[in-house]
């Protein structure tokens, strides 16, 4: 072949390449129609973490077999949910290295190495929960509070913007969310006296399009829910990916705790929008509505859960709802058009409130808050659930929650002052009992236990429970064959019957599961992927 012919061939390839593999926003919106791919953090923008793939069934799940694993060169918890696009799996090796692998064999195409600034100081591990994609561009937030766009074919950076100051405690740990031509992220740092925000960036340039402060500024509605200047360092961080309803054109985000976490003396008031879900216009960042789960929180009950969107019959009428099992121990159903509270009840042991009133506001129990001497409260500091992805199956009609139950902490408070970049928490809660640590045979009942619970989303009534000895950080995946995949700190990855909770299969994965499983398919073969310890594992039926 002549050079000229070769050049022409390459030019043709260039044109074809420009058309190939583009993940348009329409594809992301209709991600449920291409279950072979996993195009956004929770599977679809409705965030149900539910797959319509049907090859793996309750009958054959026992034939699952490990196909490959990727061992991260990192000892951090592997919290990232991968993306899968047409046979390529993209994941993040903590803290912020992006890896593209062949989803069938696990062999690496490229690695993008990123060294975060030394000023980075995420509170609770140098973790990352995943990526977003649009077109041929991947997006990652970093623990030093940058947002980076990468070319999905080559791993080369396209732009890199500083979202906030790492030295002041800001960090990005969650997977970004793409809505239309913008990529949306929120800032972690609730333990450092930050003023949290959610911001949208132009996908092409990285230019900031809008910013929504999760604490209203002086003169803005809601600023008076903070005493004095406490709003300036009130936390209200964001560290789990939101959801998007295209019909309503609203994006929903859970907001973290107010700061200082365990001493509310200097921040009298409800402390909006901490511990809220906010509904924002994704084009402008304007607040449409909010609902606060825990007003004036002193127990670190971040409302940083994935907003699960579902359309269901509600008292005889079709209704667009939002299902929310909160870290504070209550399960809620909200109307996601208006934010109206529809119903709610505890899904775990709760002692800080005796129930919810008609508007969904908790009726607090006097004295169940941190004291100088210490006060025992259920749920404990890690919550009745936390950031772990729940799942909703439209087939079983059940909502599945990773739960910690019979679990409490002794909450203690001390006075605290703000210094930039230093922790601003008002002491730390302690366990009710000495924790067993490494010795697994010394576990005490008072440490509580983990479970997967299935509830009727319309009533909050528990349908079944799969109980574990140890607690769990694992998310949940459900399938159109009524399987449920999850794990826990004990280091098992397992499949349950989604209708009964019966254990159908398990594998010892040698480390705690700290992310939500996903499913994908290549060449007609269904795979299930999960992370455990510092590894990513991929299973399929034995051939």
């Amino acid at each position, binding site marked *: 072949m002549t050079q000229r012919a070769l050049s022409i*061939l390459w*030019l043709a390839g*260039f044109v074809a*390449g420009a058309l*190939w593999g583009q993940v348009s926003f329409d594809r992301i919106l209709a991600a449920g129609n291409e279950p072979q791919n996993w195009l956004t953090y929770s599977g679809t923008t409705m965030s149900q973490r539910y797959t319509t793939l049907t090859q793996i069934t309750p009958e054959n799940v026992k034939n699952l077999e490990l196909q490959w694993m990727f061992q991260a060169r990192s000892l951090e918890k592997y919290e990232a949910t991968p993306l899968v696009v047409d046979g390529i799996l993209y994941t993040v090796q903590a803290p912020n290295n992006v890896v593209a692998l062949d989803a069938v064999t696990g*062999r690496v*195409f490229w690695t993008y190495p990123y060294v975060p600034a030394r000023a980075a100081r995420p509170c609770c591990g140098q973790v990352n929960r995943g990526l977003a994609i649009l077109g041929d561009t991947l997006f990652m937030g970093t623990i030093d509070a940058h947002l980076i766009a990468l070319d999905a074919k080559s791993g080369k950076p396209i732009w890199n913007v500083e979202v906030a100051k790492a030295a002041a405690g800001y960090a990005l740990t969650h997977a970004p969310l793409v809505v239309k031509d913008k990529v949306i992220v929120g800032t972690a740092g609730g333990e450092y006296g930050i003023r949290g925000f959610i911001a949208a960036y132009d996908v092409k340039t990285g230019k900031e399009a809008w910013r929504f402060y999760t604490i209203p500024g002086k003169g803005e509605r809601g600023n008076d829910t903070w005493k004095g200047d406490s709003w300036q360092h009130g936390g209200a961080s964001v560290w789990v990916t939101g959801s998007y309803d295209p019909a309503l054109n609203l994006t929903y985000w859970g907001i973290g705790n107010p700061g200082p976490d365990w001493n509310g003396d200097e921040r009298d008031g409800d402390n909006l929008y901490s511990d809220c879900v906010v509904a924002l216009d994704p084009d402008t960042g304007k607040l449409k509505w909010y609902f606060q789960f825990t007003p004036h929180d002193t127990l670190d009950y971040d409302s940083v859960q994935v907003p699960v969107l579902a359309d269901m019959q509600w008292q005889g009428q079709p209704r667009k709802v939002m299902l929310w099992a909160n870290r504070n121990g209550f399960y809620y159903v909200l109307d996601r058009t208006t934010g109206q509270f529809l119903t709610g009840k505890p899904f775990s042991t709760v002692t800080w409130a005796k129930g919810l009133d008609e508007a969904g506001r908790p009726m607090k129990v006097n004295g169940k808050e941190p004291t100088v001497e210490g006060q025992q409260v259920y749920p404990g500091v890690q919550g009745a659930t936390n950031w772990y992805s729940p799942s909703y199956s439209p087939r079983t009609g059940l909502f599945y929650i990773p739960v910690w139950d019979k679990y409490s902490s002794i909450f203690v408070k001390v006075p605290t002052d703000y210094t930039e970049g230093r922790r601003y928490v008002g002491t730390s809660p302690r366990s009710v009992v000495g924790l067993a640590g490494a010795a697994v045979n010394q576990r005490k009942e008072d440490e509580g236990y983990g479970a997967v619970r299935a509830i009727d989303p319309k009533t909050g009534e528990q349908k079944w429970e799969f109980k574990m000895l140890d607690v769990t950080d694992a998310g949940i995946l459900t399938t159109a064959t009524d399987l449920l995949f999850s794990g826990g700190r004990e280091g098992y990855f397992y499949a349950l019957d989604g209708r009964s909770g019966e254990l159908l299969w398990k594998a010892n994965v040698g480390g705690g599961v700290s992310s939500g499983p996903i499913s994908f398919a290549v060449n007609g073969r269904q795979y299930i992927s999960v992370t455990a310890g510092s590894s990513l594992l991929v299973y399929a039926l034995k051939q």
Partner: protein
Amino acid sequence: MAIPLAAQHSYGPADIEDGGKLFRANCVSCHGPEGALVEGVDLGHGKFRRASTEDEVIRIIQDGIPGTAMPPHNFTDFQAGTILAYLRSVASIGRTAALNGDAARGKAIFEGKGGCAGCHRVYGVGSRVGPDLSDIGALRRVAEIEVSILDPNAEVLPQNRYYRVTTKSGETITGRLLNEDSFSVQLLDTKERLLSFQRTDLRAAGFLSESQMPSYRDKLSKAERDDLVTYLVSLKGF
């Protein structure tokens, strides 16, 4: 009497090449491809601020300069010496005649007549099939860029070699090798697909011996090449 370290070795072409690799990997981001980017320092022409002998330069390479941006490097005396040998060779080639081209015209040639964007990418535009040139001006000297345009086979970096596989069904696919192991091969092919093959499915696999880039000696005039080089030298990355 102590024998000066630098005098203890002579450096062959392979050593100089190794020195160039070390320089590009460790030094170029501050000192620039010509070694003259830091004010008052011109590495290629022996102009230093804090050293008067080569031994002192080697010590500075190894120990860094506390309180400045110059970090220490874990190089042996010989490795540090190869960097100096490389810099001397750079100086002996001499810098290209002043860049008198026009970068805007060069950009137009890159994207138009030259067809460069059909294989190369700059700031997110163009093909990923050839090397991304977004920061070529920060990595490579003028002389090296000129050589690549006139004689693309003179030097091809390992990561830019082309690889071709032939499947058992007879399909031939060419691309940039991204990864390989005993059982599999990963490529970015000329259609910009990330492809993965099991070797058991391949009839043949191997590197192409020649660069796939044509020489522009006869395709562009001297003035056009000057414009193109001026444009490429202006590309300093993000």
